[in-house]
């Protein structure tokens, strides 16, 4: 009996147990059991984690992208700003959201499409053909698992299907096109009345002492000499260190012996030429004429009556060489046109070539001498080698000194002397400068100015941190003199103060009389003409200006296009008039006299098509952006801020 139960146990009960164990694998995939150790989580998108490692990898990629984009202007701290880091994380979140959405919306990519995409990736190709070995090698070199890579690519393809969907479902109707043109190319005709903010229009130019005192107090900053500092600093640069370095002759010779095989002066050739000018796109007639002229030259030359040089003077169209008999001197490859080089570097000394066609015209070349490529002699390259040795030695010293200076300047923050002595440098001094910086010297660099006015240097009187002016050039600064901002005495600036008061008064007067007249004209109390007469001014006509017109002040254009009008182009009386203040203080009354709508039919077909395409693309972008925004709104996104830095 027992035996039978045991037998049974071994048969179906065992299978049930194994079956139950298999289920989780079947359901969730084996992968989840083998994922590596967990790393910190920076965000969760609908429960899916973005871990620190991936985030840091994205940051690194972004850094590289910025560096190659900005080149010399790249600053490492750009990527350290919280906004930038957040933008990188946001992009990752968006990508996760999209990949979740396309998956759940039922986007699918067939194996066929996936593999044809993989095969098109150039990195996986050998001699223009997809190589499965290369594919696996590259993935494993990147530490990437095949199913991970293919999963990512699948998701990218789904996302691009989503985008294609938006692209192909966007359209623009005829009415929308007409409306866009009607508005964008609308022209408006105006009359304007400019009330200038001039002193002549003031009733009184008397300014009382009290007013002067008040203005002087109120705008104190305008009447002071700004805060200034003077620096003392030590400056370390590779160039200066290199100047001090002596180079050993024996060492130089050794370097030369080592290098000389690589120090080759290219082959150079000396030639004369005669150019018959012929434009690249010349017609048959011009070509025939040039060829006839060239054969004339060849004929005379072969008759042997006239020398090549004389013919060059007579015939050559090359302004640089015609007068010297066509002499070009010695030249290496790559200076002349390739067609010219090809002939000049394959002919023998004393030979005259067949005519050669280049973009300039037809050339006849005579080769005079060949200077074969040769190893450059020691005397010639000694200077270069010595500069290189000096620079190399100086660079080593630079980093050594830079570290010493940084340490000492930090440890003894109250003086630069120690650091200077240790590095054998002199302590230099700058002149006084304000926060605007100086026009010459060390304080022209914004970083130096910023450091000079920083709390640590200015208030606490300490040495600055080392400031890198270039990769091979640094300074450390400290403040030697500090002049706080000082007010200029009232007597000295009195005229300035009065001028400012009067200017302000002129503005206010112009505006208030403008606004007053505008109200009367709008209310029908006063005709436009009567208003102008009152101020002894005249309306000026402005015909049909567009939205980006520069013929009138931008404030006037903006205002004129904000006047309401009827669909038939007429303007109702009460809304016809408006006014605006200009930047300089003048006040302008504006009368809208006519509106001419833009007309689609005045555009040719190509322009219409390009506008249609532009509007369609705007729709695609707009729909896509709205869609992403709605995904974000509905998603549950948690960001663990404390993990981000």
């Amino acid at each position, binding site marked *: *009996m*027992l035996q039978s*139960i045991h037998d049974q146990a071994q048969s179906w009960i065992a299978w*049930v147990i194994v*079956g139950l164990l298999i*289920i989780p694998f*079947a*359901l969730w995939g084996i992968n989840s059991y083998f994922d590596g150790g967990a790393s910190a989580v920076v965000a969760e998108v609908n429960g899916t984690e973005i871990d620190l490692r991936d985030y840091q990898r994205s940051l690194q990629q972004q850094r590289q992208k910025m560096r190659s984009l900005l080149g010399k202007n790249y600053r490492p701290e750009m990527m350290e700003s919280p906004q930038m880091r957040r933008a990188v994380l946001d992009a990752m979140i968006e990508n996760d959201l999209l990949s979740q959405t396309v998956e759940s*919306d*039922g*986007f*699918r*990519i*067939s194996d*066929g*499409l996936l593999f044809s995409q993989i095969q098109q990736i150039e990195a996986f190709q050998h001699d223009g053909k997809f190589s499965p070995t290369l594919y696996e090698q590259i993935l494993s070199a990147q530490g990437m698992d095949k199913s991970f890579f293919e999963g990512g690519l699948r998701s990218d393809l789904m996302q691009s*299907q989503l985008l*294609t*969907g938006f692209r*192909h*479902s*966007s*359209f623009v*109707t*005829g*009415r*929308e096109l007409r*409306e*866009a043109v009607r*508005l*964008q190319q609308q022209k408006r005709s105006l009359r304007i009345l400019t009330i200038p903010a001039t002193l002549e229009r003031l009733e009184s130019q008397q300014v009382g002492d009290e007013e002067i005192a008040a203005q002087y107090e109120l705008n104190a900053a305008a009447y002071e000499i700004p805060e200034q500092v003077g620096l003392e600093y030590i400056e370390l640069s590779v160039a200066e260190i290199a100047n001090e370095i002596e180079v050993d002759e024996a060492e130089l010779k050794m370097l030369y012996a080592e290098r000389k095989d690589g120090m080759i002066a290219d082959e150079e050739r000396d030639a004369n030429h005669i150019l018959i000018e012929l434009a690249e796109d010349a017609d048959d007639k011009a070509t025939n004429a040039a060829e006839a002229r060239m054969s004339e030259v060849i004929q005379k030359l072969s008759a042997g009556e006239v020398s090549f040089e004389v013919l060059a003077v007579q015939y050559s169209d090359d302004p640089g060489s015609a007068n010297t008999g066509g002499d070009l001197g010695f030249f290496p490859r790559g200076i002349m046109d390739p067609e010219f080089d090809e002939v000049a570097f394959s002919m023998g000394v004393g030979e005259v070539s067949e005519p050669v066609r280049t973009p300039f015209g037809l050339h006849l070349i005579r080769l005079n001498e060949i200077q074969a490529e040769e190893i450059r002699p020691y005397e010639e390259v000694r200077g270069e080698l010595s500069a290189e040795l000096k620079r190399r030695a100086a660079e080593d010293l630079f980093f050594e000194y830079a570290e010493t200076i940084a340490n000492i300047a930090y440890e003894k923050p109250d003086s630069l002397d120690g650091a200077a002595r240790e590095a054998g440098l002199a302590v230099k001094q700058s002149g006084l400068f304000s926060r605007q910086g100086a026009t010459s010297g060390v304080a022209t660099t914004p970083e130096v100015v910023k450091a000079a006015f920083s709390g640590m240097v200015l208030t606490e009187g300490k040495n600055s941190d080392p400031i890198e002016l270039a990769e091979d050039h640094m300074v450390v600064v400290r403040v030697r003199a500090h002049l706080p901002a000082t007010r200029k005495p009232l007597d000295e600036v009195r005229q300035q103060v009065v001028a400012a008061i009067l200017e302000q008064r002129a503005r206010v007067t112009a505006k208030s009389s403008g606004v007053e007249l505008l109200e009367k004209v709008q209310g029908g109390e006063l005709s436009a003409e009567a208003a102008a007469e009152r101020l002894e001014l005249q309306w000026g006509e402005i015909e049909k200006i567009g*939205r980006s017109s520069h013929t009138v002040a931008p404030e006037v254009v903006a205002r004129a*296009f*904000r006047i*309401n*009008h009827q669909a038939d182009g007429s303007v109702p009386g009460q809304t016809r008039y408006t006014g605006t203040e200009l930047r300089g203080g003048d006040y302008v009354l504006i009368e809208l006299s006519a509106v001419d709508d833009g007309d689609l039919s005045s555009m040719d077909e190509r322009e219409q098509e390009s506008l249609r395409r532009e509007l369609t693309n*705007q*729709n695609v*972008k*707009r*729909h896509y*952006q*709205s*869609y992403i*925004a*709605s995904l974000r709104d509905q998603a549950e996104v948690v960001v663990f801020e404390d993990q981000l830095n």
Partner: protein
Amino acid sequence: MEFNSTDQEEIEILKKWWKENGTSTVVGVVIGLALLFGWNGWNSYLDSQGIAASQQFEQMQIALIEKDSDRAGRFGGQLIDQYPGTIYAANGALGLAAMKVESGDSVAARVYLQWVMENSDFDSPRQLARLGMARLYLEEGDIESALSHLSSESSVIYASHFSEVKGDALRQKGDSSGAQSAYVEAIQLVDSTDERRALLEMKLAEVAQ
């Protein structure tokens, strides 16, 4: 042996238990497994439908790029007929509608949009279809039909564009103040980097009081 006798007893207990509960246990396990495999089967059916639809969709997009409207129409039609529940059918129908608008046949375009509105379960294409309907009615001068497609509250995803079209319709109807508030709304909802902003401002300036 002691062991033997307890063993015997346990076997008896097991046997008794099996007699009482055996059937229901087996049935339970069978139902569980059936559900499990059914669910997996259903998912893999959906996957295969998705993949087939995806391939049709790819073909249709190529035809659209090549401006071969007959072929695009054929692939799109198959998507709608054979895989009506997929996202591809919805996006395909929107694509065919856009193609019809381009060739000037707004009535045919509306048929596709109508299909998406009535048959698709996906919010985004459904809302785009409704927006498209309104724009086409406006094109045909049927302001009331246009407005009726714009009034529903479920236009959340493309709210800015809905408001813009509403402004267009109201302006055409002569309702300046209604148009004004619609345009204001459209501008508020549009992304700050959106290129359409300038045109929206122009539209607003024209109806502003």
